[in-house]
């Protein structure tokens, strides 16, 4: 149905996604994750991962330096709060523009190479940004301490309209503070928008072009087709997504630190995307949620909680289980993540979404034969 705006499946997916996201404070509460800070992070890293997937999932270019755009977005947003106004909208507009420009320059250079050379180039640029932000760019970034808002920032636009602020300045939206659940719904709105655009891009002729870069770039080039502008557009778009996510993180918590630009942060978004399922729309978001959930919830489990959990076992047995399981939670949550990740890469290269598909297929096969045959989208 190429004439309709969205196919029925796409529309259902989008609506389902929207409902799931907006209802998160309710359905996540029993899992201990229904508090605003974590919910905001779910949204923010979801946007980051969706954007990353536009580059990695569609074109196959594995960037190890996306955290740089995330960080640039954060710094830009905080500077907008400091210099212009505490309102979130200008900060986010600037953040997206600046990270797009930054991505344009870096992407233009990095996309001259492919494969692991591309990965190392992006990594090198991101590490340079990180190291500079940490050292000589301190006047702009405030180094290790991170850039914060202070009482005596100029905020020229706020001053011009005579708006004064009592207490520690925090970002607002038309005068409404964006902390807590307000911040969550603000971020959720952007995640839904981001998801919508990603869906449109994937289904568009432009998205098809990107996918063909992944499947066979050489053949594309032999047909006289210059793929680089397309790859560069994808790179810039995903850089803008990262900048948007970085800006949102600064909106919900107005501090921009250099750590969020480090290569480990870039590695994290790669993990999220792979875990959820590369090239799928929903997968990266799920991957982001799982990793952030682990980071915040699994890491908070301690021996007391484990002891309570295993208390149904006989004493010696319970102690043993507490000792064993405590290696995998609390400080050791990275171990669980690493193991999960290794298992996923070995057995489910398509990530959690592939698992879901396989289960769905198995269920369908065992149930009544479906009327319509399942068609896999051409890769």
């Amino acid at each position, binding site marked *: 149905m190429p004439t309709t705006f969205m196919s029925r499946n796409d529309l259902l997916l989008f609506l389902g996604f929207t409902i799931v996201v907006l209802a998160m*404070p309710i359905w996540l*509460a*029993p899992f*201990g994750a*229904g*508090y*605003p*800070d*974590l919910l905001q*992070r779910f949204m923010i890293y979801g946007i980051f991962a969706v954007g990353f997937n536009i580059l990695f999932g569609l074109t196959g270019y594995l960037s190890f330096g996306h955290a740089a755009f995330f960080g640039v977005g954060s710094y830009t947003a905080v500077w907008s709060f400091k210099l212009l106004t505490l309102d979130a909208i200008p900060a986010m507009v600037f953040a997206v523009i600046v990270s797009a420009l930054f991505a344009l320059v870096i992407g233009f250079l990095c996309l001259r190479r492919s494969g692991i050379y591309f990965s190392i180039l992006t990594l090198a640029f991101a590490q340079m940004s990180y*190291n500079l932000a*940490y*050292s000589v760019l*301190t006047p702009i970034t405030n*180094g*290790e*301490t*991170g850039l*914060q*808002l*202070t*009482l*005596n920032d100029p905020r020229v636009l706020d001053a011009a309209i005579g708006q004064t602020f*009592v*207490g*520690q300045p*925090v970002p*607002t*939206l*038309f*005068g*409404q*503070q964006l*902390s*807590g*659940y*307000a*911040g*969550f*719904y*603000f971020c959720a709105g952007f995640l839904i928008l981001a998801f919508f655009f990603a869906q449109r891009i994937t289904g568009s002729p432009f998205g098809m072009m990107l996918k063909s870069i992944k499947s066979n770039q050489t053949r594309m080039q032999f047909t006289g087709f210059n793929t680089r502008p397309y790859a560069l557009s994808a790179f810039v778009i995903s850089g803008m997504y990262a900048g948007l996510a970085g800006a949102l993180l600064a909106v919900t*918590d*107005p*501090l921009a*630190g*250099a*750590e*969020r630009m480090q290569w480990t942060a870039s590695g994290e978004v790669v993990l999220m995307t792979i875990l959820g399922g590369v090239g799928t729309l929903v997968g990266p978001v799920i991957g982001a949620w799982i990793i952030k959930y682990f980071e*915040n*919830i699994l*890491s*908070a*489990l*301690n021996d*007391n*909680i484990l002891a309570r959990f295993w208390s149904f076992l006989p004493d010696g047995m319970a102690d043993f289980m507490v000792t064993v399981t405590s290696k995998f939670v609390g*400080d050791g949550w990275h171990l669980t993540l690493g193991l999960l990740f290794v298992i996923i890469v070995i057995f489910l290269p398509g990530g959690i979404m592939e698992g879901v598909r396989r289960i769905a297929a198995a269920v369908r096969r065992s149930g009544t034969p479906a009327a319509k045959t399942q068609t896999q989208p051409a890769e």
Partner: protein
Amino acid sequence: MTLLTRGLTRRRVLQTGMAGIIGTGVAPMMFTKGAWAQEFCNNPTGDTVTFGLNLPLTGTYAEEGADEQKAYELAIAHLNGEGDGGLLNVLAPSALKGNGILGKKVVYVSSDSQTKSDVARAGATRMIERDGAIMITGGSSSGEAIAVQGLCQEMGVIFMAGLTHSNDTTGKDKRRYGFRHFFNAYQSGIGLAPVLGQSYGNDRRAYHLTADYTWGWTQEESIKAATEALGWETVAAVRTPLGATDYSQYLTPILNSGADVLILNHYGLDMVNSLTQAVQFGMRDRQANGKDFQIVTPLISELMAKGAGESVKGIFGTSNWHWNLQDPGSIAFTKSFGAAYGSPPSQAAHTAYVQALLYADACERAGTFYPPEVIKALEGHEFDGMGNGKTLYRAEDHQCIKSVLVVQGNESPTSEYDVLNVVQEIDRETVAYDPSIFGGDLGPAEPAPMCA
């Protein structure tokens, strides 16, 4: 410490509802001010009160973080009336009763800050929002302290800083909701310079290696000012990244730079690595300008001295506190810490312990957990018995003014913990300074902003 969220409070429902009002542009910021004057962030309603411990359990300052955690656990036990009571018995004046705070039992949650400001801030947010922490404390880096106290100001939650030595914590970046018991780099300079002058003379050429963040910068500045006032010359001041491991490329240029003193503005593992490597480069056996080459570590702790081993012998530095002090407070604390953990406490443990007690005492004196009242109780409070002599929590910048120790690496340690000797105790009149020299603005205590 439960995984399930606490039930929806009235305010939380209100806040959720307010999300819907966004966009109309009419939701006034002060919507909640009048009606909720006594309702504040994480007002403890049950029979417990939660401390949020933000500790670097991994990263450059991990060892300090682990020691702080022990101290907090001890302090909380003592506040709840368990154990031998520790410093509760010697704090004067004291409103503490040994039955928790205001009758509520003290519990805690903790978070690993990884010695990174960004992570520290996320951890503090989590402990305030999810775990309902009434107060955040801990940290072992000034970067963390400044980042977290900014957050606490926004949230309206009191932050009792752990180990932070930068002048900025209670200077340029001071906050109404942030309090520091530890001393600062400026005081290190005042205390250390006369001793350096006496031991090494007034004609020295110093070379600084400095950890590249707020604490390093202010310490470099303070020590530079203090030593230049003695007549020393500064050859160069080189910045090294926080958490650097191999310092060799920064050490080689020193050898023939004409400097005869190396000043290491490093802390934690950075210091252990840079000091050990400097000694490996033979710096302590060198002669320069006809004098013995010397190394100075302006801020040093027992944990670092222990980590550096042989290398630290004879080296001068300053400390906030040392377990070998012979006043009743220090003896009592060393004894209860030693009995609990089998090793003497570090200065990080001491400052952490004291901060927990001071907060509890302030709540008792204020008769409420309401932060503006607690802040009032802490500001200008004078107390004694905690191991540093008479101490004043200065109202102007929330800096404790108390005596400072000049220490030297022990040449002949009797145990693995007996690594530093106290050379001199500088009294608090000498290290007091005008709070206005560092600028900054505390910001308001009221109205207490609402957290989620």
